[in-house]
């Protein structure tokens, strides 16, 4: 039931009323003296009129209709749904951080700034890049910053013929969308059956029109791009620059660094690799790191260290920086959680992240292969994730990857990423992450085996799944056709 249906005219959370606030008893100024009636609204917005307990109960109950990492295995490929440490949450919610105004003078911000500076430095080391800006508020905004920096670099050299960004067909949708937002054209590069980028096609596509290449490594195919050093050499040879999409950094954290692979700029998804919560769709944080050539173009503000403390580097006219992309200093609360996590893990812990994420993925891949599920890349190692395809089941049993996904929900597992990357038919992209136990993954395998058996015996059971959740399968077509985005019946 919607909160609006629990509403009753003139009910409210009375303890929150400000009716007795001292300002209302000061006869010298009243609202009507200060703001003419023409500026004031004549109606009252129809917000809920409910008590505090009603509100608490309503949203507590709603929360229980969600799957989350805290309640369910959530192997959503390319999203790195690992445990979000409670300690990091508590530290970021310390009153001194929460009450801190973003425009407080630097002399009243040194504690916060020292944490942010330290994080900048560490992210630079772990990515093999010289300089970092923490300000982008999500991965896609980090991508925007990176590609804008590539454009600024070429423009500064009057190299204006470079109008094209190359993107592999397996790339995240944000990559081509970002290139367009930066004023580029997009050319897609095919991926071979092995999962590697087609080098011959890449060579053919490179030329004086190439501004750069956007690449995820490990790729969204769940494999490490083996020719990465040849790729970066070829792009540089053609005068282009390389952008690293950090969505999959969890796979190589502390094991290999994008800077050493030849990338010029990258973003990190701290809400993936550094374990900050996804919050049901954000907030994230997408810091950008750059090598020597692109460092001057990093977005602001950044924290600068001096002998006597820290200051903000703000955008100035004439600076090469691409400037600010947010009204303030980025998602500081998310950055603080990442700072906590980095401190707890340290060097050794970061290396273990990639080791155990990879161990878990390869174990799960082997178990599923042994049970007869089709791997998209059977001859390759899994990285932190891997792909299976239900093409065979779709053909022989008439049940799709989505049907399997919906039925899996009934077993208490969130479904892996379905139908991505687009180039593998009927696929799942599975990422268990390093924080899951062996037993949990074994249960996941058992569930899938059971579901396939159901598919063979009673396909309808999958096609009409889920059966045990708060709602049955939802009609997406109706949602788009009969748009209902706002509740109106209460007004």
């Amino acid at each position, binding site marked *: 039931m919607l909160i609006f249906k629990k509403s009753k005219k003139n009910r409210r959370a009375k303890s929150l009323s400000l009716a007795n606030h001292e300002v209302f008893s000061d006869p010298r100024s009243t609202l009507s003296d200060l703001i003419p009636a023409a500026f004031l609204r*004549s109606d009252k917005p129809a917000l*809920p009129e409910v008590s505090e307990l009603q509100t608490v109960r309503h949203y507590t109950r709603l929360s229980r209709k*969600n799957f989350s990492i805290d309640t369910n295995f959530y192997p959503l490929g390319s999203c790195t749904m690992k445990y979000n440490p409670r300690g990091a*949450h508590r530290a970021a919610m310390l*009153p001194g*951080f929460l009450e801190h*105004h973003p425009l407080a003078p630097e*002399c009243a911000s040194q504690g916060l700034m020292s944490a942010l500076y330290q994080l900048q430095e560490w992210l630079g080391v772990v990515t093999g890049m010289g300089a970092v800006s923490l300000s982008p508020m999500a991965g896609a905004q980090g991508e925007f910053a990176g590609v804008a920096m590539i454009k600024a670099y070429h423009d500064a050299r009057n190299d204006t013929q470079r109008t094209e960004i190359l993107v592999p067909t397996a790339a995240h949708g944000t990559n081509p969308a970002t290139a367009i937002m930066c004023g580029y054209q997009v050319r897609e590069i095919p991926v071979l059956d092995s999962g590697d980028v087609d080098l011959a096609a890449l060579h053919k596509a490179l030329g004086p029109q190439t501004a750069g290449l956007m690449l995820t490594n490990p790729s969204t195919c769940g494999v490490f791009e083996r020719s990465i050093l040849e790729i970066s050499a070829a792009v540089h040879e053609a005068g282009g620059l390389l952008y690293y999409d950090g969505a999959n950094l969890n796979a190589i954290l502390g094991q290999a660094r994008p800077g050493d692979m030849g990338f010029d700029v990258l973003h990190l998804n701290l809400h993936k690799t550094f374990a900050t919560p996804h919050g049901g769709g954000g907030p994230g944080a997408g810091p950008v790191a750059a090598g020597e050539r692109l460092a001057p173009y990093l977005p602001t503000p950044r924290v600068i260290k001096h002998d006597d403390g820290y200051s903000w580097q703000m955008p100035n006219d004439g600076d090469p920086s691409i400037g600010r992309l947010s009204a*303030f200093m980025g998602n500081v609360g998310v950055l603080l959680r990442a700072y906590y996590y980095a401190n707890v893990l340290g060097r050794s812990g970061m290396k273990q992240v990639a080791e155990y994420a990879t161990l878990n993925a390869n174990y799960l891949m082997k178990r599923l292969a042994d049970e007869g599920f089709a791997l998209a890349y059977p001859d390759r190692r899994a990285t932190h994730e891997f792909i299976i395809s239900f093409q065979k089941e779709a053909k022989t049993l008439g049940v799709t990857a989505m049907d399997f996904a919906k039925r899996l929900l009934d077993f208490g597992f969130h479904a892996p990423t379905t139908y991505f990357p687009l180039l593998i038919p009927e696929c799942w992209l599975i990422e268990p992450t390093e924080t899951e136990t062996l037993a949990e993954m074994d249960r996941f395998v058992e569930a899938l085996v059971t579901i396939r058996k159901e598919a063979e015996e009673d396909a309808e059971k999958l096609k009409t799944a889920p059966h045990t959740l708060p709602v049955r*399968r939802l009609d997406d077509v109706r949602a788009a056709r009969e748009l209902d985005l706002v509740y109106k019946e209460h007004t």
Partner: protein
Amino acid sequence: MSFIPHTEDEKHQMLAAIGVKQIDDLFDEVPGALKDPDLKALPESQPEMLVHRNMQALAAEDQGYINFIGAGAYEHFIPAAVWDIVGRGEFMTAYTPYQAEASQGTLQLIYEYQTMMAELTGMEVSNASMYDGGSALAEACLMAVRAQRKKAHRKILMPGTLNPSYAQVSKNMTFRQKIELVTLPWSSEAGITDRDQLEKIEGGGFDALVIAQPNFFGQLEDVNVLTDWAHSQGALVIAVVNPLSLALLNPPGSWGEKGADIVVGEGQPLGVPLSGGGPYFGFMCCRQSIVRQLPGRIVGRTKDLNGNTGYTLTLQAREQHIRRSKATSNICTNQGLAVTAATIYMSLMGAQGLREVAEASVLNTQRVVSALDSIGLKPRFQGPRFHEVVVQTPREATGLINEAAQHGVLAGLSFGEPFTQLKNDLLLCATETKTASDIEKLVQVLSACI
């Protein structure tokens, strides 16, 4: 230290199942030249107990000031229930609700949020949020150009009274798509957009007019006149508003004859802590007729197999994960958790509660105006204002603010580019959180420092 659960036995069992001797063998596709990077500059691992202590010390360093800064981020009282519920793992540690049936909590909440934002702004539809107010405005500019379709001039009029950070973000996110942002002159007496100057740019040639209400100085613009003028020129109206002010002020949907077309703003005042600048959330509402140009996630109400009501992400064909290079925006992640806080905050407060907060803030700011007047500090602009005021001082404001901070008071914001003529002025804000004694302290400190 780590959050990895494996025992040594389990590790060996798993390696044996895979058929390798050691974990390092799983990285055999990584070129040797890339392995064993130099990570000496990373810290040693520390127990959580010590990390927490260190962060407590850092947080305490910046704590204890009486804050009179606003300028786009506002200190309001947040009821305890808001973040208690937001902190529930089921909200905090869920992903974007791609599997709708397993995400009904988040989805229904967003549908309720969309409804509340449409109510507050007087608009027909809302999306599920953008990153912040600044980037929401940038996206609104791009949206306005798309909505004008083939008629688009790729030119947007921006008020000179806009928060300069918003102007910068908008420029930085749009100029590569060859969109020009033209700044309108403002009246240095009134601190609002100069209506007399509008005649000079009549004749169309622009896609939208941005109107900030209240504007960066806290002053109220003549929104009805501006809206009707923009529409008469064939342009759309993009409103940039403080959502809290809408409990009190005329909502953009009712501006002028036809109302604004797109409404954006910073959602932080609705139950989101200052937190050094984020995470906040940008909101974005519009007319139903241009909803297909709206960027970001949108939740719709629909039916399930049994005909029961449920909620799901909809109109996804606008988005990057489906449409790739033809998407309305590259935005993917938004600010879901901050939206969760805002939705709970609005439920708890209701329209009456929000109105009291807004009104108390207006009155408190007036108390600051009167109190500072008594020590000879006058407001720069007359005319109605919301909960911020520009006050003139006899000395350069940055130095004054730093000195006031030594006495425990954050005495507002000093102006930089493009407002260098206001370099001696303070932009002050007093929300409902300020008491008479806080204001007295501000007056004491300022009178000692000027």
